[in-house]
Every structure is written in structure tokens, then in C-alpha cells.
């Protein structure tokens, strides 16, 4: 056997035993090095690439602007259908409601496009990134809350457009809807209380009755977990003489601790302030 062939074979054998563990070790080292380098960049010199598509996805949470617009149109249609339950809308009424709702949609997307045009593009440093998000968040929340809620052109048109008979029926429908949401949230609030103070059937029944008879649903459908804060605030506001007899003496302290943060509408006020911002 020639010497160079011997060396090649030897090297191949060596590689067979040595390379796999080495490869795994080296891969690990390389991966860690890469992670460290990437981390260094994030911490010391954060830069994000910002473009129009990115901004759309951030604001509309993984949707394109076109998808978000279509969703808003579909949502308008179901709301008009709901108003129609108050008594069949005439063609003119339906058209006016659709136009008003469309106005809300157009106004929102115009505001958004103005905002988007004013945002920095390209490579953005950390400070600009943070400032950009402070400007994005209000419009993101506006979209999440729905474009046809209280104060919208759509809602104002509903009030102005319906006949007195339709209006009365619509108010009943709307109240029923809010009451169902309120009753659901009361039950969720009680299951939350029960994680620390489990209730008997009798206690649960008395609490539901008390909340149903002595408190009222919110005047409007509150966004996200606003309903929960509202119920807890109502519970916290109930007179002690009504609540205390429902609980055993040893249960009163943990119950009070749970509702304490909601006393005097503290959390509800914070929630409403955040909504306004």
C-alpha cells in the first residue's frame, strides 16, 4: 500500500470516530457564539426594519389593511342586521345606517394612513421604536374596541334615525344583550372568588341574587375585561350588611382582600382612564 493512500485511509478512519462528536461540539460553540453576537446587537444597538407592511401587521395584529377593512365592513353588516331586529328597517334607513357606518370605517382608515405616513421607515433605533409604538397603540386600541361603538357616527345615526317604536324596541334589545353579558360576568367573577373562598350552592345563589337585584349592568358593552372589573367594583360597593351574612366569619377576610382593590371604583377608574388615553 502506498504511503499517501495509507494516510488517507487513516484520516478517514479518524474522521469516522472523531468528527461526529467534534461536529456536535463545534455546532454548539458556533450556535452559542451566534446567539451571543445577536444578543449583543439587541441589547447595545437595537435596530428594527420598519416598512408599511410591518406597520399594517402590527396595528391590525397579523392582518393586512385590506383584510382589516373587509372585517370592518362585515362587522358593520352584522350590526345593521342587529338594529333591524328592532323592527324591519326601510331601505332608506338601512342605506343611511350603512353610509354612517362606512363613514366611521373611512374616518378610521384615513386617520391610520395619516399616522402610518408620519411614522419612521427603514432601520429604526430603540428610542424611535418606542416612540413609534406610543403612537401606534391608541389607533390599535381604537380598532380593537370596534369602529361603531359609543360616540361613532353609526351610533348617533341609530339614535336619530329609528322611529320611536323601533327605538324603544332597540333599547330593550340592547339592554337584554348587556344584561346577558353582565350575568355571564357575574358568574365568572364568582368562580374567581371561589378559588380562595369556595362557595356552597346556597352562598352562590344568594350572591348572584344580590348582584342581580342590587346592581345594574353597565350602560354600554365594555371592551375586553372591562365587564369583569365592573362586576368586581359593584360587588365591592355592596353594603357590608348585605354581604357579610352570606359568608362564614372566617371567610370574610379573604373575600374582603379579594374585592379590596375594586373598592371605590379604583380599578374601574384606571380602566376607563386607560380607555380614554
Amino acid at each position, binding site marked *: 500500500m502506498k504511503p499517501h493512500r495509507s494516510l488517507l485511509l487513516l484520516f478517514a478512519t479518524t474522521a469516522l470516530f472523531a468528527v461526529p462528536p467534534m461536529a456536535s461540539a463545534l455546532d*454548539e460553540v458556533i450556535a452559542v457564539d451566534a446567539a451571543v453576537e445577536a444578543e449583543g446587537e439587541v441589547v447595545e444597538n437595537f435596530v428594527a426594519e420598519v416598512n408599511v407592511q410591518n406597520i399594517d401587521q402590527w396595528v391590525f395584529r*397579523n392582518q393586512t389593511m385590506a383584510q382589516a377593512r373587509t372585517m370592518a365592513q362585515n362587522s358593520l353588516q*352584522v350590526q345593521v342586521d342587529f338594529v333591524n331586529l328592532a323592527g324591519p328597517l326601510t331601505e332608506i334607513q338601512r342605506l343611511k345606517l350603512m353610509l354612517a357606518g362606512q363613514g366611521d370605517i373611512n374616518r378610521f382608515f384615513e386617520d391610520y394612513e395619516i399616522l402610518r405616513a408620519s411614522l419612521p421607515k427603514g432601520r429604526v433605533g430603540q428610542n424611535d421604536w418606542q416612540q413609534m409604538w406610543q403612537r401606534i397603540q391608541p389607533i390599535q386600541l381604537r380598532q380593537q374596541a370596534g369602529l361603531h361603538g359609543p360616540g361613532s357616527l353609526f351610533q348617533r345615526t341609530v339614535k336619530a334615525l329609528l322611529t320611536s317604536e323601533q327605538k324603544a324596541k332597540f333599547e330593550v334589545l340592547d339592554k337584554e344583550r348587556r344584561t346577558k353579558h353582565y350575568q355571564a360576568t357575574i358568574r365568572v367573577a364568582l368562580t374567581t372568588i371561589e*378559588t380562595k*373562598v369556595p362557595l356552597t350552592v346556597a352562598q*352562590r345563589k344568594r350572591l348572584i341574587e344580590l348582584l342581580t337585584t342590587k346592581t345594574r349592568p353597565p350602560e354600554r358593552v365594555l371592551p375586553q375585561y372591562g365587564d369583569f372589573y365592573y362586576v368586581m367594583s359593584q360587588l365591592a360597593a355592596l353594603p357590608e350588611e348585605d354581604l357579610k351574612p352570606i359568608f*362564614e366569619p372566617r371567610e370574610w377576610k379573604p373575600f374582603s382582600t379579594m374585592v379590596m382593590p375594586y373598592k371605590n371604583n379604583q380599578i374601574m377608574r384606571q380602566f376607563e382612564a386607560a380607555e380614554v388615553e
Partner: protein
Amino acid sequence: MTEIFRPPRRRTTRLVRPLCIVVVMALASLVPSAARAEDGFFGRALKGVAKAVEKLVEVEEPPVAREAVMLAFPGNANNVDRFTPLLKQLLKIEMAYLVKVCHPNDEQKALLRKQGDAAVADIAKKMMAAQNGRRGNAGFPDARKLMTDALHKALVEAKSDKATDYAQEIAAREAARKEAGVAMMTAQIDRTLFLAPDQHVAMAKVIEKNWKDEWSRNTQAFLYIDYLPTPDVSVLSGAMNNQQQAVWKARPNYGTISFGWEGDLGLNNGFVDAGVDEEEAMEAAPAEGAAAP
């Protein structure tokens, strides 16, 4: 937090790479052909070198994930029991409930305490197994259900005539959780779809029929409309018109929210000692037969 992922001795590990290559190349060029066999002296020597290199790298580069876990949960690495303290608190709360419902006598109380402690140990083991199996939050057993099952069993063993009452109360509590979940899920769907009153009823029925028990563990999940667990749209669409179906199907899918096993127990927010206390309940428990509130 950034320091968590920074391996401690980078310079040394960088030296390992060229060193490995030099050692292997040197051996390869010096070894006679007869020694290439795997079982030969040099074959074994090469394996030894490879193992040593692996070991060296392993020592210098502790796995990043483990390091991160240890720093994020001091004292709570993989095999440290972080379940028992909260399970003990859960036991206190559930024992207080049992006393309220069943008014056990002294002999029964002693047995219940013993069985309760055993249940804590047993559930902690199950939670640890789920954690070490890395099955995610969904893999954790329902600790509260395990606890109430164990206490019911203890009541039966203690020959309490209130064991059936206890079982009924626990079933009613579970039913209340489901009722809350169904109502809240329906309300959240209604927020988006503006259901007509008859659709609201139909939707609640569809949801109830397709309810999954794990949804009852934490009703807080139903407060977050974007992360709402729901049955599949094909099931729900029976209670929707075409327009509503279009809206529902177009919703982005963000997945569902999870508050972790501690969140499911309601004991993760700093109120560890805020539940009703079993010892206090034991002392204050009226004689058996007294009326519950």
C-alpha cells in the same frame, strides 16, 4: 435578563475548536495503518479524545435552557418541588370548605388531615412528573379536582354521613364553573357577532354540548376575546347566519390564553395566604348537624 443566556467562558471554548483539529490531524498523520481499527489502541485513544472534548465543552457550556430556568426561578430547577407550598395552601382552602359542608367530628378531622397531607404529596409528585415530562401547561393534572377527589375518598373512609352532600356540592361547583364559561364564551361571541336573542340561546346550547372539561379550570380565559377557547367554527356556525360566519371566520387566530397551573388554582398572584384557612375552620367548626349558611 440578558446575562441569562451569556455563556460564562467563551474564550476558552473558542480555543477548544482549533485545539481539537490540531490533535486529530496530528494523530491521523502519525498513526500506522494497522492501528486504524476501531478497537485498536489509537481507535480507542481517538474515541477518548473525542469524549474528553465533548465533556470539556459540556462543562464549559452549561445548557442555556437549564441556566435560564435556574435564574428565572431561583431554587426551582427541574427537580426542585415548587408545587407543595401552593398545594398545601389549596389543601387549607379545600379543607375549610369541607368543614363548612360536612362538619366532621374530631376523629374524622384527624383522618382528613392525614389523608389531605398524603394527597398533597401525591399531587405534587404528579405535577413534578408532568413538569419533567415537559408536556406544557396542558399536561398538568387538575390539582383542585385531584384534591377534592382525595378529600371525598377520605370522607367515605371516615364514614361521614355527609360524604354525599360534599360530592353534590363539588359537582355543583364544577357545574357553576361550566355555566360561567358557557355564558361568558357566548357573550364574547355575541360581542363580535351581535347575535339575535334566539341565536344567543342556540349558541349557548352548541357550546354547552361541545364543552371541554379543561376549559372549566380557569374561567378568566373567557375574559380575553382574542384568546378565547371555543369549539371549532364548523360546530358554532349552526348558530350563525352567513354574514356572522364570514366575520367569525375572518378573525385572526391568536391561539388561546393560559395562566399556568398556579393561575388555574387562583394562587399565583401574591395572595398565597389569602384563602380561607382550614385550621381556623377546624377550630370554629360547629358540631355535626349544624346548619350551613
